[in-house]
């Protein structure tokens, strides 16, 4: 009965061999010459500051995402302001600009309510649950 599983055994051995053989060949063939100056972290040949494998605060990620709101806003405001004089109906152009800012401001309100602009995240929600 167990004999019917021999294919799995062959599969396992072949799989392991296909991983181990190239690694062994690499050890045989590749030049290997590590020394401190070579294994040092690469920072454009400057003296590296700290280790390359650091833990990066996830809160910077949400801060960068929120920054995009203002970044895109300003990027579109400049051409709008530049051609503003040439519009026939300036009130219409102003209204469209305000509408655009309002939509992006809605995004800011959303992240504000979600608590993503707080540096100590979740603090407000926790307090609300306790109180």
């Amino acid at each position, binding site marked *: 009965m167990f004999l019917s599983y021999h294919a799995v055994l062959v599969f396992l051995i072949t799989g392991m061999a296909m991983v181990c053989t190239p690694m062994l060949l690499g*050890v*045989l*063939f*590749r*030049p*290997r*010459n590590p*020394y401190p*100056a*070579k294994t*040092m972290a*690469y920072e*454009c*040949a*400057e003296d590296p500051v700290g280790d390359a494998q650091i833990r990066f605060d996830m809160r910077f990620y949400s801060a960068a995402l929120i920054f995009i709101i203002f970044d895109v806003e300003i990027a579109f405001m400049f051409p709008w302001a530049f051609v503003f004089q040439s519009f026939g109906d300036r009130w219409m152009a102003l209204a469209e600009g305000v509408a655009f800012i309002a939509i992006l401001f809605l995004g800011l309100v959303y992240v504000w309510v979600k608590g993503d602009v707080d540096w100590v995240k979740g603090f407000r929600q926790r307090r609300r649950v306790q109180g």
Partner: protein
Amino acid sequence: MGILNNALPDIGPVRAVDAAVGWGRASSIWPMTFGIACCAIEMMAVYAATFDLDRFGAGVPRATPRQSDLIIVPGTVNAKMAVRVRRLWDQMAEPRYVIAMGACVCGGGPYVKWGYNTVKGVHKIIPVDIFVPGCPPRPEALMDGILKLREKVSREAVFARRQETARILDARGG
């Protein structure tokens, strides 16, 4: 170095393998993205469409020394930069090759007499394979340097322990 590198006898089959490996290495020399001064402008022209260094497999500048085989030193190396050049060369993986591009890098150039801060030739810091003179060299001159380097790389003994290689290896103790 690796177990088999320069360890096999210098016989026909090993030489054939060496030739194949040398052909592969010479056909895919990846230079490092590195420019110092005005020679770098000529180097960029060589990478770009008109001169098209990619014809020789050397047109893929890598953004890190870990992936690159060749460092072209294009431009005046001053004392402050010399430390960095040495470290960049240190951080490249073997086999690594160096092309000294321009008069300053080959031996000081216009700064050879009064340049208090110029390193008089990059060969004082790192071992140079090919010298390309000129101030700055024409793109054709750099391409000629690349072709010379290709010849050198393709002739290299990788696995065979040749007479001249054995002498060098014995001199530095293995």
